């Protein structure tokens, strides 16, 4: 049980018009990189929003680090790092100050915060941008700041929605290595993506989501996972229509 970083059980949330996620079960274990793949609008972001309380589930439970996120016990959110939708990068602050603010929001202060920030700046090669205001950074470098904010405190659970968005090839490799290091150290990682080749490189488990439902799993070492992915998605669409 202590190895379970995230567990969703029968989670549903429906938007007006019927879109959303429906009866989703999903787990992320310690040391695992679990990839959630699906087409645009499949429900990946909605599912991730439910994991950090950006949305409340209408049915089912979301357990983060063993605690129900809407329960009374309280989740240790300092042990969670998430980047969903926009990076937490305030235009008026430079890269380093943005990271210090992100650390402070997780209760890190003084030397501990500075050490964590310096580590993340080195790890994601942000040195050149640490003194540059975020409003002057490219989208890709803002994304790097957001990723550094989510990873710098070495959380036990990492949730990243389309993390390679806007990243250049070197940024993609740096992120991949950072995630592999953290998984090796025991973090449970959930990433969403629609780049099958990218997730196949690092994922230990791949779940396919279509029309708000988990419709199957792909073998990361499979020979033609793209074909398998589309077969699952089209079968699911045929079933629902």
């Amino acid at each position, binding site marked *: 049980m202590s190895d379970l970083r995230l567990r969703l059980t029968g989670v549903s949330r429906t938007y007006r018009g019927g879109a959303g996620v429906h009866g989703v079960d999903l787990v992320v274990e310690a040391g695992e990189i679990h990839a959630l793949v699906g087409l645009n609008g499949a429900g990946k972001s909605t599912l991730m929003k439910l994991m950090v309380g950006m949305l409340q589930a209408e049915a089912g439970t979301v357990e983060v680090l063993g605690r129900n996120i809407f329960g009374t016990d309280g989740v240790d959110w300092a042990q969670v790092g998430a980047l969903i939708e926009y990076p937490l990068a305030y235009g008026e*602050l430079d890269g380093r100050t943005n990271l210090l603010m992100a650390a402070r929001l997780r209760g890190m202060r003084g030397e501990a915060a500075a050490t964590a920030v310096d580590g993340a700046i080195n790890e994601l090669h942000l040195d050149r941008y640490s003194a540059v205001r975020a409003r002057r950074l490219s989208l890709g470098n803002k994304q790097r700041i957001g990723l550094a904010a989510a990873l710098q405190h070495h959380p036990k659970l990492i949730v990243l929605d389309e993390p390679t968005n806007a990243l250049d090839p070197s940024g993609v490799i740096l992120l991949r290595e950072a995630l592999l290091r953290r998984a090796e150290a025991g973090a449970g990682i959930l990433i969403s993506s629609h780049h099958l080749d990218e997730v196949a490189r690092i994922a230990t488990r791949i779940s396919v989501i279509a029309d708000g439902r988990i419709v199957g799993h792909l073998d990361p070492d499979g020979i033609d996972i793209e074909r398998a992915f589309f077969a699952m998605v089209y079968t699911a669409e045929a079933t629902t229509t």
Partner: protein
Amino acid sequence: MNTLIDAVAVESRKARSAMVLWSTGALLALGVATLAAVVVVAGRGGDPAILAKLGPQAATGDWAALLATAAQVTAAGGLLAFGVGLSWLIGREFADGTVSGLFGLPVSRSDIAAAKLIVFLAWAFAVSAALTVLLLVAGVALGLGAPDSAAMAGLVRQLALGALTALIAVPAGWAASLGRGLLPGIAVTVGVLVLAQVSVLADFASWIPFVAPAFWSIHPDVDSALALSVVPLVPLIFGAATIFVWRRLQLDR
């Protein structure tokens, strides 16, 4: 309590680098002080046509004219400036998309909302204090002499008026939270401004919290001072409502 301290530290650091707050504050403080100084200079010029336009209160060209003019402009301009500042402090999280990074943290969104209100009040009080100092400097520079007891009372009243005006601007934060952007906050500020100014002109309902500071700025007597006691209800009610909106916030639209 520690998480509220963390939230205040973060919000105050953001505010210190925010050009919107610096420029809005500077515009209010320098604008009101300059306008009041110009009125004094005009009053001392003695041109009967200008004196007639200024009215009896501003035409005297002394400390009373300087402070009366400043008070009237602060009641309207201060509300607009403070409403814009608070709308930005809250609405920018939605406009910039950074609100999504404020979930899944040990610092609760209630603490973040409370921190924003605390930082707003600190900023608005600092701007009010700067305006008061500028008026003192302007009066001395214009050769009005050292302020006498009446002028000192007027300066204290000016400081209090700035703070009270900040308090009645708090609904802008609630509207910006509920409407998830800057414009709803600004719209509510303009609504409050119209209500206050029309009520003053019509000499009506000085006891309404939104109206009381403007009324007091024009008629600083005992009755209007008593009406000020209801002003704290505005930040209490709308501050609590703002925190409530943030606590229940879901990014579902």
